[in-house]
């Protein structure tokens, strides 16, 4: 038997979490380095996966399969396609930056907070989330995926509720109250989604007789497994609801601004750049593959909801007064694009959506982490408390600007490629939807530039006059992300080549072909 | 008797059923609706005896006797004991305190009755084998044969249950003394130390018309003194207030003695009375 690479990639951060958690509190610096080490080891393994994966080969590669709960046909089945590889890469890539950015966030001495915060716990929880997210990208057993989908809520809950943002106008107690509100809201929303999904998972088992994605999909494709129209639709809705909560899609989005606002910036990145991607990934992998007919049936409604997300999220971002909440609403808008791309059911749309997941992860990480550095300097999340930062901290302002420009999808930076692909992919099939979604790019410019203008330009405010510029550690976090944004903006080919075959498979699952250009169609 | 247990009953049994059945239902209703627990207990005892008769009529001779001896004789008496212990005279108020409880209860009872009657009505109960064969060796012997063979384990376990229940009842009612009982001397000293009531408490029942312990002694102004009544009765609220009665009696006595002595009141009616009295006297 070959080396279980996929298991190892998930196991390394899991072991790392345990080891980190076991470090005594007095040696918390060691815990930080340990966590960083394990996250880097995971990154190495993820790169190995990327190298070993052959884009043109089998659909699922590096597969592993072991019996687990034999009575119910639950198996420990892993396998990755191009989309999975790309997202594992994203996760493994972002976590070291998250850890580095949160280096001092949970340190009682550094933060000056009197509340007891277990430093090692913070990093152990981050690694735990990483392990679960990676495994969920690998799982090809529906039940295994469901368990991971739910289980990752637990460490996230503690990360949001336990290590929230210190920057508040009010007292520590008030902050703690808001934090726990946000954490509970996050948990309840996602649990509600997960429970509905559980019902659908059980329903799927009743219909299909096992949990294996590949088997069910093959049976569906060959016509062996017939589903009644209504059954399929109900099951689809059960799955989709959970994913739409996690993604999040309007109107199930209200947990995100709270969670991202109250969490520390690295945790906010973890939420939006890593954990939420599981939702969109699962739509692509499970909804389309298991329920192709129902997916097509629901497409109009989902597209409308995605469209609302895009415009609504952008408009609300314009109206925010809190930097982190603004980024959260911007993310809602971007998730609208991703979902739109998935359900446009064209190669461009779905490749674009997958690319969008990666690019959004990187760009939001860049913007949010810089915003976090900014907030930790001034101790306030309110946009109105800033002004003229550009004058005192030009590097910080510059990186913030690049992050903002990536958020507004400036050509030359990675998000442009994906956003344009999504728009083109949608436009070829649904022109009106594509046109309305294009308004999103104007609004994106509005909210990012307003944010930049209010915080960075103008006369220097007294409170920010002595703000230090980015430190070396912070620069180490931001610079690679920016470099990556530029690289993927100019040369996205490595990722698209990874993703294209997988998207082709997905499209053949739903039996959709790209619309032909008018000129060719006329011939 | 065994012939009576055939599938159709004799008209004698029918008559017995209709008469006694009616009485049993009335007894049951009375059990529920009587204000005083004693009355409820007595009504229940009546119903149980009737049931004993029905057992006999159904060929369950042993049970019929047991019903009378054990149930009506022992258990119901136990009830009466407790009722006495708790207070025989205290009448319950039947006023409902929980909102909607009475209606819900009535609904439940009615619903049960309808359901059960409906269920029995629907069941196919046409076959009656009668107990002639089963009771051929005598009812008690038949039962004994079953109890000591087929149901021997259940029987033993019920025995254990009974013993446990007896022990449990003792444990529940037993009060553990945690300290030495005070001697009379100590009690006297304590009373002096507290300085509350040095002399013995006043005696109750100035008028020994009733079993006077529950009647408060009257103070010189005619009001009752609670001190004279046993503490238990006081706590239970079972003091019988006779002060007003006494005062009325006093008034009546005074009036009568006035009449006797020929003193006339200032009111016209009293003069009339006096006049009529005079006439009576004259007639004598």
């Amino acid at each position, binding site marked *: 038997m070959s080396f279980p690479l996929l298991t190892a990639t998930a196991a390394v951060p899991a072991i790392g979490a345990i080891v980190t958690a076991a470090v005594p509190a007095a040696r918390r610096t060691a815990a930080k380095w340990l966590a960083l080490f394990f996250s880097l080891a995971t990154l190495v393994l993820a790169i190995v996966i990327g190298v070993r994966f052959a884009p043109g080969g089998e659909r699922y590669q590096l597969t592993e399969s072991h019996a687990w709960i034999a009575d119910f046909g639950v198996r420990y089945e892993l396998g990755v396609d191009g989309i999975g590889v790309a997202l594992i890469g994203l996760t493994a890539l972002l976590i070291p930056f998250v850890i580095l950015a949160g280096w001092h966030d949970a340190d009682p001495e550094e933060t000056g907070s009197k509340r007891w915060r277990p430093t090692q716990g913070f990093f152990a929880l981050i690694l735990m989330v990483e392990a679960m997210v990676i495994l969920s990208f690998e799982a090809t057993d529906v039940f295994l995926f469901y368990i991971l989908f739910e289980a990752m809520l637990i460490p996230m809950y503690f990360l949001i509720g336990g290590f929230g943002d210190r920057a508040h106008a009010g007292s520590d107690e008030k902050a703690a109250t808001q934090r726990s509100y946000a954490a509970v809201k996050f948990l309840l929303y996602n649990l509600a989604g997960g429970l509905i999904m559980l019902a659908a998972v059980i329903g799927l088992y009743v219909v299909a007789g096992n949990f294996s994605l590949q088997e069910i999909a093959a049976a569906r494709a060959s016509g062996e497994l017939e589903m009644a129209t209504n059954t399929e639709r109900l099951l689809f809705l059960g799955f989709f609801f959970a994913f739409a909560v996690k993604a999040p899609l309007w109107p199930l989005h209200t947990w995100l601004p709270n969670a991202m606002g109250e969490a520390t910036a690295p945790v906010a990145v973890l939420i939006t750049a890593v954990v939420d991607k599981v939702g969109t990934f699962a739509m692509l992998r499970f909804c389309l593959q298991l329920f192709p007919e129902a997916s097509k049936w629901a497409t109009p409604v989902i597209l409308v909801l995605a469209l609302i997300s895009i415009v609504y999220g952008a*408009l609300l971002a314009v109206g925010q007064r809190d930097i982190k909440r603004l980024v959260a609403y911007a993310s809602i808008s971007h998730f609208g694009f991703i979902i739109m791309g998935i359900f446009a059911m064209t190669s*461009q749309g779905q490749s674009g959506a997958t690319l969008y997941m990666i690019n959004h992860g990187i760009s939001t990480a860049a913007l949010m982490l810089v915003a976090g550095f900014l907030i930790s300097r001034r101790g306030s999340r309110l946009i109105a408390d800033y002004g003229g930062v550009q004058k005192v901290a030009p590097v910080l302002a510059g990186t913030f600007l690049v992050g903002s420009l990536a958020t507004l999808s400036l050509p030359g930076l990675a998000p442009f490629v994906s956003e344009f692909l999504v728009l083109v992919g949608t*436009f070829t099939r649904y022109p009106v939807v594509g046109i309305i979604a*294009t308004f999103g790019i104007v609004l994106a410019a509005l909210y990012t530039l307003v944010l930049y203008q209010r915080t960075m330009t103008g006369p220097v405010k007294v409170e920010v006059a002595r703000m230090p510029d980015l430190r070396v550690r912070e620069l180490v976090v931001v610079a690679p992300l920016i470099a990556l944004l530029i690289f993927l903006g100019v040369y996205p080919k490595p990722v698209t080549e990874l993703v294209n075959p997988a998207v082709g498979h997905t499209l053949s699952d739903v039996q959709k072909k790209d619309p032909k250009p008018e000129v060719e169609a006329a011939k | 008797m065994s012939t009576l247990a055939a599938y159709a009953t004799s008209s004698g049994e029918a008559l017995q059923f209709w008469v006694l059945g009616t009485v049993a239902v009335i007894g049951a209703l009375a059990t529920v609706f009587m204000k005083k627990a004693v009355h409820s207990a007595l009504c229940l005892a009546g119903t149980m005896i009737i049931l004993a008769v029905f057992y006999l009529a159904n060929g369950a001779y042993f049970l019929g006797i047991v019903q009378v001896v054990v149930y009506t004789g022992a258990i119901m008496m136990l009830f009466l004991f407790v009722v006495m212990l708790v207070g025989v005279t205290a009448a319950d108020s039947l006023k409902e305190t929980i909102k909607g409880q009475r209606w819900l209860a009535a609904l439940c009872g009615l619903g049960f009755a309808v359901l059960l009657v409906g269920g029995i009505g629907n069941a196919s109960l046409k076959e009656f084998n009668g107990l002639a064969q089963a009771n051929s060796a005598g009812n008690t012997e038949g039962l004994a044969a079953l109890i000591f063979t087929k149901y021997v384990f259940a029987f033993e376990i019920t025995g254990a249950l009974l013993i446990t229940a007896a022990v449990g009842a003792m444990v529940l009612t037993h009060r553990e003394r945690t300290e030495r009982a005070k001697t009379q001397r100590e009690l006297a000293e304590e009373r002096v130390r507290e300085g509350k009531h040095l002399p013995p408490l006043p005696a109750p029942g100035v008028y020994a018309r009733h079993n006077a312990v529950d009647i408060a002694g009257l103070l010189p102004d005619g009001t009752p003194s609670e001190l004279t009544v046993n503490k238990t009765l006081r706590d239970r609220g079972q003091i019988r207030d006779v002060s007003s009665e006494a005062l009325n009696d006093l008034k009546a006595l005074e009036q009568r003695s006035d009449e006797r002595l020929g003193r006339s009141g200032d009111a016209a009616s009293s003069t009339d009375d006096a006049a009529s009295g005079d006439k009576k006297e004259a007639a004598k």
Partner: protein
Amino acid sequence: MENLIALLVAAPLLGAAVLLCGGRRLDRSGHWIGTLLAVASFAVGVLLFADMLGKDAEHRALHQSLFSWIPVEGFQADVAFQLDQLSMTFVLLITGVGSLIHVYSIGYMEHDERRRRFFGYLNLFLAAMLLLVIADNYLLLYVGWEGVGLASYLLIGFWQHKPSAATAAKKAFLVNRVGDMGLSIAIMLMFTTFGTFAFGPVLESTGETSEGMLTAIGLLLLLAACGKSAQVPLQSWLGDAMEGPTPVSALIHAATMVTAGVYLITRSGAIFNAAPDAQLAVVIVGAVTLLFGAIVGCAKDDIKKALAGSTMSQIGYMILAAGLGPIGYAFAIMHLVTHGFFKAGLFLGAGSVMHGMNDEVDMRKYGGLRKYMPVTFVTFGLGYLAIIGFPGLSGFWSKDKIIEAAFAYDDGIRGWIFGGVALLGAGITAFYMTRVMIMTFFGEKRWQPDESGNEPHPHESPKSMTIPMIVLAFGSVFAGGLFSLNESFVKWLEPVTQFEHPHPVISVPAITASTVVVLLLGAALAYVMYGRKPVPVTAPRGSLLTRAARRDLLQDDLNHVVLVRGGEHLTRSLVYVDHTMVDGVVNGTAAGFGGLSGRMRKMQNGFARSYAVSMFGGTAILIAATLLMRAV
């Protein structure tokens, strides 16, 4: 040779990367690096130009393919360049004027502590603009298109500590984004129609689709052009953009970036030729803008804003010409190039004046400056004569041709209308430029000490600033004549844009004569109004039109009321909706459950009898259900 094309973009891009990432240690040498790389790019351009001249007209276009940019099933976007005559013209203009302005900025920005960054932005702009004009497909053009938008944003807001500059930068970017939206939808439409968006296949297969589709694409491209080229209705950002340093105004907002719209329309000529309705829209936009800009230019007292109005108006001419089809493309580009010379020269002159006047921009506080800064006066004056179309100078040759072509738009009423508008515009141009000239260089000196008591001491600018002005002045004088010699420019562009001789509704000499008459009239009127009597230092209230023109003909106010206010209300109410309704539904559900459990808790009154009732009731219901099931 074609391998050199990438160098055009690479050189300034390298400069931008080095200067922006290089940090403080490049502060002292940064401007030289930037200028050197701009000049290098110009040199490459000249080399390629020389090579191109050596070939015959049909084989001049070069093509270079670098790598596949976005390879997705059914979707090919390549990083590939195409250098034909049209692109070449732009390359030379951009790198040439760009290099001059780099040189100028060395002196102009000498005292600015962030000069290195300024040059980095300038290089970034050059790279983006060059990418725009040498891209071989619309998507790559779009990259350059947004890239110049970014550079423009950075440069307008260069003095970020001024809130007005930051706001102006944001406004420019946003308005441009609206236009960009048009371009991106146009690209999508091309993709769905043709399956590609490379220039070659798209422009060759215009005959295979319907006119309606082409009209739609054309209108969307026009929207894009309106945004970038500050045409009505997206013109409002240009005036505010003057908050940026003057070299920026000269390079970006006069000579190059704002002409990108003209490039786009000319480049997409095949689409417009097949869609007359879209062409008409282009012509109308151009005509409206040329009057709009001219009127605004008449009323502004801020020298840069007056020039900005003029820019708008001149680009209106170009758009108008581009909308005329093959009879106009070449003249549009020709006017674009000559305009690039004289408008850059005028802006640099204005910058030179401001440089000597403590950054004062109000022309009412100038006056009689010709004595203090003679070089500036002469170069500015030549630019002035060129822009009003004084016979013999550059502007005359190009503008006159546009007016001719406008008269030739149609045999009927349209030719008269648009020709008339173009002619009228020439008159107004003469009026407002004469006004600028008189208020700045003639009359009495009107400057006063400012609040801190510093009286300006007007002086000539350093060599690094005057030399570019002189070079540009040469261009303003001779370029037009050179281009018109033997119709060389038209022939140069003909392989790309086609050319037809215009046939105006009235004879050509009559048009030329009337043009000259009109411009003399305009200049004379200005002289009467401003030259004969002293100019008041504070602006008179003015007529209704003047006041409206000072406020950009109320466009900003309209935008403010409709978009800004409306948008604010919309976002605010949406925030409220999100909080109370969307979130409210969720929280309401939670509260509902809370309330329900409160009610349920009251049922738990602790009385055993209550519980007994529920037990009995439950049992009864269960029995009933069982019986019912039996019965059924």
